[in-house]
């Protein structure tokens, strides 16, 4: 199983020499790089000096114990078992807890878990989908095997003639992505930045038999053409990418479109989740608390605070936190620098297989095993299907699950 992205491809074979993966079969280039491991593995350190695991864990525990408002962040590259321990640790320490979904696919996953958006599995898409829409998504770059394994090229049970005759793939984006090139010009709808909600409303109008108009003068015949294709779909799937998530201020236009589509057809939606188990974190936190992210536990009481003010971005912006534990993530790279800067001013603990910008600023760094290679567990694929990650070989690095367990015990 490759953990390079939330497609979690399960057809990968590897050749190993000792504790190194030397050859990877079937994965995409990103997956090969993931499975072979990084060239700069993380060292176990305390205050930038080499340390043994027990010292690092004791120091991490004391930082979290002393903090009034710690943040626990990351989780997208951890197994569900590790995530559950992390949630327990947040509860115990009265921490803020969040993950990347907080500033990417969170609203979509939440709407699916609340059953406000209809979804399906990638296997359904492979076997049944005849109309596939990539909206603000470019899987050719973000999830390289998406089109070949599930959404466009394969022959499925009810799609024996594959992409040549049996499937229509449409791309809606603000730039002509590589996926748009594959789907061909006549199926590419180019929007101006921020034009998605308006286009969505026009498409919903077209489905209702009204003339679709946009302030950016997209040919109404083309919008009507798209609405006809979607109306006639036997099984439709919309893959929502970050381009769409960032462009919509609220999800109502998407709800309206999906409701309208399902008056005529059978349409489903799947979020293009990036990190391999981001969706797992959302599911696990939701099962325990009813919320998918952006939480603050109150140490002694059972109280929970939830909302944007508890998101990783706002607690950093407002400098609400006095320590942070980062698991399998690099917020100093992935967040705006102006926001992430506060992380460098507080005691940081990072657990990761590799060196990154955040580890380079951390008071405590604890190397962990690479998920799906050196450690196993379960994870939830981008379509909500739970899969099992098998360990390929043992290494001397502990899993993040084990490290989090030890930190919890030490507190």
């Amino acid at each position, binding site marked *: 199983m490759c953990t390079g992205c939330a497609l979690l491809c399960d057809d990968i074979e590897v050749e190993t020499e000792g504790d190194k993966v030397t050859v990877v079969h079937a994965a995409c280039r990103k997956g090969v790089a993931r499975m072979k491991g*990084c060239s700069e593995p993380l060292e176990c350190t305390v205050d930038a000096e080499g340390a043994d695991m027990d010292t690092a864990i004791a120091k991490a525990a004391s930082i979290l114990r002393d903090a009034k408002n710690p943040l626990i962040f990351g989780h997208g590259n951890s197994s569900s078992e590790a995530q559950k321990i992390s949630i327990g640790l947040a509860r115990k320490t009265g921490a803020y807890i969040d993950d990347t979904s907080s500033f990417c696919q969170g609203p979509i996953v939440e709407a699916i878990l609340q059953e406000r958006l209809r979804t399906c599995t990638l296997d359904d898409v492979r076997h049944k989908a005849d109309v596939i829409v990539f909206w603000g998504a470019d899987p050719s770059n973000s999830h390289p095997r998406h089109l070949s394994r599930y959404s466009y090229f394969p022959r499925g049970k009810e799609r024996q003639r594959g992409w040549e005759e049996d499937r229509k793939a449409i791309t809606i984006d603000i730039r002509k992505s590589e996926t748009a090139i594959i789907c061909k010009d006549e199926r590419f709808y180019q929007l101006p930045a921020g034009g998605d909600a308006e286009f969505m409303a026009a498409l919903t109008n077209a489905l209702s038999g009204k003339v679709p108009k946009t302030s950016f003068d997209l040919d109404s015949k083309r919008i009507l053409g798209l609405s006809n294709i979607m109306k006639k779909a036997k099984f439709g799937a919309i893959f929502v990418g970050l381009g769409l998530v*960032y462009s919509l201020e609220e999800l109502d236009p998407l709800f309206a479109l999906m409701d309208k589509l399902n008056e005529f057809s059978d349409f489903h939606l799947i979020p293009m989740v990036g990190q391999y188990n981001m969706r797992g974190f959302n599911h696990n936190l939701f099962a325990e608390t009813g919320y998918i992210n952006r939480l603050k536990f109150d140490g002694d009481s059972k109280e929970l605070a939830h909302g944007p003010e508890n998101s990783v971005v706002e607690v950093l912006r407002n400098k609400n936190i006095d320590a942070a534990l980062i698991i399998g993530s690099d917020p100093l790279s992935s967040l705006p620098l102006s926001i992430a800067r506060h992380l460098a001013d507080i005691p940081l603990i990072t657990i990761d297989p590799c060196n990154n910008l955040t580890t380079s600023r951390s008071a405590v760094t604890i190397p962990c095993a690479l998920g799906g290679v050196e450690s196993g567990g379960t994870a939830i694929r981008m379509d909500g299907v739970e899969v099992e990650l098998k360990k390929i070989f043992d290494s001397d690095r502990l899993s993040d699950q084990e490290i989090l367990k030890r930190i919890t015990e030490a507190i």
Partner: protein
Amino acid sequence: MGFGQFLAAPEIKLKVVTYRDVFQNTAQESSRFGEDYETLSAVIRLDLKDISKLSIKEGETVILRNGSGKVVVQAQKSGYEQAHPGIAYMVNSPWSNVLVPEDTGGTGVPKFKDFEVTVQSARGASVTGIKEIF
């Protein structure tokens, strides 16, 4: 090297749209601090008209500035058939994140994919290294 020397070069305001790239992503898996990751990340892809307005040649460096920060990256042609003056593309990376505004309106979601920068030639200057970013 100071930035004062670039003051005379023409400057233009551009909207930046960020995107993902599998080659850069692969380089990131191998090393955040590697040369490949920098070469594939510290780049801005421009429309031909904007390149000529800036009086630069493809492959030269430009300095990007806004209220959030500044960073020197390499300028390249976008290669899109359709002209897009006023809009530039950057792969999502720590270099683009230097320029993403802090303001979120309290929503918890920064404007990662859509922000403005002032661009100016930085001929002769080298690209900002990842370790200089922070």
